[in-house]
């Protein structure tokens, strides 16, 4: 199964002009725990997907929100020449296909 089939929302957004943040959210505790226990979401897997150094990846497990969060520096500052996603809202796609065994 892939993450997109289990999560009820996968999203990305600017957290200020210099940071991109990613939320993976679930409808129930069982789905959240299933993904947590799989270990598939972790900083080094995320660093590989987003081609950034693992030490720049911040990762949070938020059980009371039934959510995981990753944050990384933006590859280009918001609105910098060449930036194609002003709000950072369409950068979550690589997370959709993460295999959850």
């Amino acid at each position, binding site marked *: 199964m892939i993450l997109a089939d289990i999560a009820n929302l996968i999203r990305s957004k600017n957290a*200020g002009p*210099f*940071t991109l943040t990613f939320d993976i959210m679930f409808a129930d505790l069982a789905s959240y725990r299933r993904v947590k226990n799989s270990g598939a979401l972790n900083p080094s897997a995320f660093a590989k997907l987003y081609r950034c150094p693992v030490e720049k990846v911040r990762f949070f497990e*938020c059980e009371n*929100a039934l959510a995981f969060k990753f944050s990384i520096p933006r590859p280009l500052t*918001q*609105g910098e020449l*060449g930036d194609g996603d002003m709000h950072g809202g369409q*950068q979550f*796609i690589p997370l959709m296909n993460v295999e959850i065994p």
Partner: protein
Amino acid sequence: MAPHFIACDAGTTDAGPFSLGMGTPAFPREAVKRDLLLMLLAGRKANIPVIVGSAGTAGGDVHVDWALEITREIVAEHGLTLRTAVIYAEQDKAYLKRLLHENRILPLDPAPPISESIIDGSSRIVGMMGVEPLQQAISDGADFVLAGRCSDSALFAAIPLMQGFPAGLAWHAGKVSECGTLVCETLGRGVIFTTISHDAVTIRPYGAGLRCTPQSVAAHSLYENANPYLHRECSGTFDLTKATFEAIDDVTVRIRGSEFISETYTVKLEGAELAGYQSIIVGGIRDPYIIRQLHSWLDSVRSYIDESVARVLGNKADKSLYSLAFHTYGINAVMGSLEPDPKHLPHEVGIVLEATAPTQDMAHKLTQLSRQPLLHYPIQEWTGSITAFACLHNPAVIDRGPVYRFNLNHVAVPSTPFEMFRTHFIDLDGSKRS
């Protein structure tokens, strides 16, 4: 239970650097006037203060003055009397350069480089105020506080903190209130009513179909924040690690356990500088022979454009002065280098050619010179003259005007919470209409 104040966050950097750089609001005047009218009428009726922060989107002086002008209009049209505190948040460059010399401007992570010339070259720099200037204005009797750039949560935490409520709860109450109904399970029209006591915060929405659940309130602290637990404000950090969320009824949630840690007083700076002037051309390509070699074809088109520019405009348009970007919708335009599927080819590609130059005139001419090569640059598969680019408009060139970039991600360390902000009291009186 009667409310003690109404507060509203009117600003954001979300739309990009243009509002701050150019000094213009990102929302229609009519929309701002309507919202402000509702709040001011409700505030006067209940005789409670109204606090608006980050006025005019970016919270610079020009933005605050724009919102003040709207306020004057409302006061006159509705015969209100309004003791108004206007708090300006734009920063004096000489003051910032002094702080820089004294090592009292510190980088956040990641931060672009800072120097005297970066401060001087900024179009506008604002400081994000904390609760203290707001509290001073309320103590001095303001009915309406109209503030420049301000921490979103501070707008809601200011009065509870003045009244001695626990800092962790006051700040958390501010945090869950500042985005309105975004804290609900599903977004809708309505208003958030937040109640604070000495051991808990309760939050409930008013509006058709709206409900807060423990998960929706907990999840709200994730939204647009790099760290869901620690939120840095001027006077310290509020820590939600131990916060608990419980449902009181179907729509109301109680929060307990939020904490606040006092730290060195810092004020976040936001700056924007001119990046240049832009012109664009919009169009598309359907020819599969071009699409399968699109990037090498565009490289050739780019070289041809550079040569024409050098030939026609000469030294005044040196290659180092301008930039040309091809946004290829259908192939990696949205994700760029992060695209996980870069080899996938669509049947059609949308292209935005974007030229950025030191003047609008140069950007316009660069774009004009780009149209012919885009239209006719040959490929090996076809013999004879081709027309490769489906141009959307005539005239093809759209001038976008000035464009800006964010140039600071830093905090200042002032000697008091007040020295970076200027408060003016204005007694507005609309009762003496002629």
